[in-house]
């Protein structure tokens, strides 16, 4: 039996009808059409479905839609501010940190949470933060470089 849920995703309010056991991942991808958030393992192992919930990285595949009522959800579609890319997105492109791109949204959202907490993380801190995000292309070095550089970029005077 479906019931109504109210969500805020990327600043937009939504009302969806979903089963109480529906995950945030299912609702994002299937009901809201936000397919930027990826389903990799669907069991909390790979990190591809990482989204921000009130600025913290959450695994959308392990989150029931009811858990995020009244909270702010941010997905990769909402990472850029309008037309300007987020520094992480710029940095991923510049460093060749995108290969097949499937893990990229999860990597970006996990890294965004890290930078919000620690604007200039060390390489070690970046590696630690991203330990739950798998890249099956194994392009980790460039991804870590990109996040470290994005932190440096935020250091520059605007």
């Amino acid at each position, binding site marked *: 039996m479906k019931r109504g849920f109210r969500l805020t995703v990327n600043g937009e309010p939504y009302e969806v009808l979903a089963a109480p056991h529906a995950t945030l991942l299912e609702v994002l991808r299937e009901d809201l059409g936000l*397919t*930027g958030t990826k389903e990799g393992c669907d069991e909390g192992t790979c990190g591809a479905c990482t989204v921000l919930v009130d600025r913290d990285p959450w695994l959308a595949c392990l989150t029931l839609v009811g858990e995020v009522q009244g909270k702010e959800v941010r997905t990769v579609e909402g990472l850029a501010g309008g037309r300007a890319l987020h520094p992480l*997105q710029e940095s*991923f492109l510049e460093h060749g940190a995108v290969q097949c791109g499937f893990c990229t949204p999860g990597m970006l959202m996990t890294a965004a949470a890290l930078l919000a907490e620690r604007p200039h993380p060390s390489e070690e801190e970046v590696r630690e933060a991203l330990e739950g995000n798998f890249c099956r292309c194994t392009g980790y070095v460039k991804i870590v470089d990109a996040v470290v550089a994005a932190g440096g970029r935020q250091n520059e005077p605007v």
Partner: protein
Amino acid sequence: MSRFRVVGKSVPKIDGLGLVTGEGKFAADYSLPGMLWGKILRSPVPHARIVSINTSKAAQLPGVRAVVTGQDTLKRPYGQFEGTAWSGADMYALAVDKVRFVGEEVAAVAAVDELTAEKALDLIEVEYEELPFVLGIEEAMRDAAPLVTRRLAATLCTGSTTPTGTSTPGSHGPTTFVRTGSPPSR
């Protein structure tokens, strides 16, 4: 100035922007009217004869559109090096008569949604007659090892000579060789 426009130059990844913004589409990101969910029933055992598969309960579940098994396929094996003596063509779209590894595809269902497809898998009844199995390469190479595929006379289907050991400094190659096996004939 280089005579090449591309070689030796860093070129922008043309699908990069889509991939960092979430706009880029992978196959699973597409949605079309009338699309169904597919689920695969896999073998829980490493080696067994399939005595019977009963799909009738699954097929009768409302929302289920199709249930297929190996019997519905062409039963044609496929794989690497087809047509050669080393042919590895021993895979089936869905298992035919027996399963050779945990996770081998035994049946497939299509249903209106994921939950229905999952329930349908639970309703498929498979009777297995378990067979001896091996869990490692050395075990598989023993003379009396159970055969996984009937097409070959032994589990060892190909052989090669692999150089091992250490090189002496200044020498031009490995100093010892080990012969690991040769292809048995049927």
